[in-house]
């Protein structure tokens, strides 16, 4: 008390109940913080009664919310009231920043993942070889999806009867999966070690070391302009948008 007396004259408004008054704002601020965290973390707008239930008994929720609302008034995010519920919303004038990215990310199907993995490990690989490894036919759509995603490309042609097209992965593939080079893909021992492959795989199972981007194997030719035209990739895009 004696100490408080000494300090008092320095305070801007030296009232008698200054000691009490200095505690109240702290509690008020704490109530605001709690309300703020509750509304932030909730998946739905939060009712005032719910908030009240988490604040010290006797707190005036209405004024807590009003203060919080004004605190956010000029921000990029606003506290808005919906009926007697509260929620945070991006400030209306900034909705353009947030709304540009409507497109939703799609998960790759299991089939697509399998094909992609085979192409990554076994490249350069032909479609027939992919099907041989998977034991099922690969629908055209699956390869299309991978091409569209920008992860798979035509690499070249196998020097074998029919000169089948070979597939390989792209630079974007490495980027997306955080690989420096294709040879960084874990080998059989490492897949086993990481528990992805069980220890009981027969010794006959071997995983090839993928052949990097620009190295062409002996029995592979680079893809040419003509090939691309043949494959229908360079035809004028008239019939697009079907």
């Amino acid at each position: 008390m004696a100490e408080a007396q000494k300090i008092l004259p320095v305070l801007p408004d030296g009232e008698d109940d200054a000691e009490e008054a200095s505690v109240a704002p702290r509690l008020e601020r704490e109530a605001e913080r709690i309300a703020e965290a509750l509304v932030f973390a909730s998946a739905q707008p939060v009712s005032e009664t719910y908030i009240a239930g988490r604040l010290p008994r006797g707190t005036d929720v209405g004024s807590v919310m009003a203060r919080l609302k004004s605190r956010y008034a000029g921000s990029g995010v606003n506290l808005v009231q919906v009926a007697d519920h509260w929620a945070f919303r991006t400030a209306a004038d900034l909705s353009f920043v947030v709304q540009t990215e409507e497109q939703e990310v799609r998960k790759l199907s299991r089939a697509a993942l399998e094909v992609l993995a085979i192409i990554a490990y076994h490249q350069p690989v032909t479609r027939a070889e992919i099907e041989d490894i998977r034991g099922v036919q690969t629908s055209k759509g699956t390869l299309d999806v991978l091409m569209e995603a920008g992860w798979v490309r035509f690499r070249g042609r196998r020097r074998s009867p029919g000169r089948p097209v070979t597939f390989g992965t792209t630079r974007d593939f490495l980027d997306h999966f955080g690989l420096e080079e294709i040879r960084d893909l874990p080998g059989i021992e490492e897949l086993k070690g990481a528990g992805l492959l069980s220890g009981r795989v027969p010794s006959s199972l071997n995983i090839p070391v993928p052949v990097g981007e620009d190295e062409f194997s002996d029995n592979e030719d680079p893809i040419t302009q003509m090939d691309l035209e043949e494959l229908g990739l360079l035809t004028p895009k008239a019939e697009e948008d079907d």
Partner: protein
Amino acid sequence: MEPLWQDESARRGLHEDELVIDIAGFEGPLDLLLHLARSQRVDLSRISVLALAEQYIAFVERARSIRIELAADYLVMAAWLAYLKSRLLIPQQAKDEGPSGEELASALAYRLKRLEAMRDAATKLVNRNRLGRDIFVRGAPEHILTERKSEYEASLYDLLTAYATLRQREAITQVTIERRHVWSLGDARLILARMVGSLDDWTALDHFLIRYMTSPQERATAIASSFAASLEMVREGQLEIRQEGAFTPIYLRRGPNPIDAATLAEMEAARG
């Protein structure tokens, strides 16, 4: 503080006799050693490695006396500690180039300290404020960021899992499973290489081997395999071998062409 692992309190309160029974509760010899070291109740850098080795060996012997099946790791460690003990007790000879007992002891102390440090780190980590338990994200996000160029999402983990599952599925139809009840030459060779690599003196190593490494059922295969492996190593000059007469102890020591660290590392790697 959240208990880090459930069996912790139960384990740490064990008496030594119970320890024997609870061998399964330990994650390998180093874990057991660390537990024994802690029971010395001193700073890890000041533990008596000799006392530790003795405790460990006594422990292993007790476990064996009541026929508790011990994994080979525990026995290899026992053999190694017995060797370490002899290095610590017998004064270093002048022309001995191998690591001294003290060096070996400090290497062991280092490994114990390092393991303990990682355990502490794990405890601190798991007791931090964690997302979803103490700290929360925005409950009603207003958009999904697509920072990537592709509109498709897949992680490397997804990719590898898909591939591994696929290859496994393809291969699994031809699986034949065999259980190994024998020591392969490779096993025996590696164990010998580890233990004799730095032995300058004639040591009855087969004594250690048989005493610590094998359960009675495995004794025959252990002797046969290590003997065959040792002959091979003698031929390659990695070992020298001596026996006074039939059924007398077999002595081993480092040969003129000892296994260097790199070769040993290679062997370890090959065993994978």
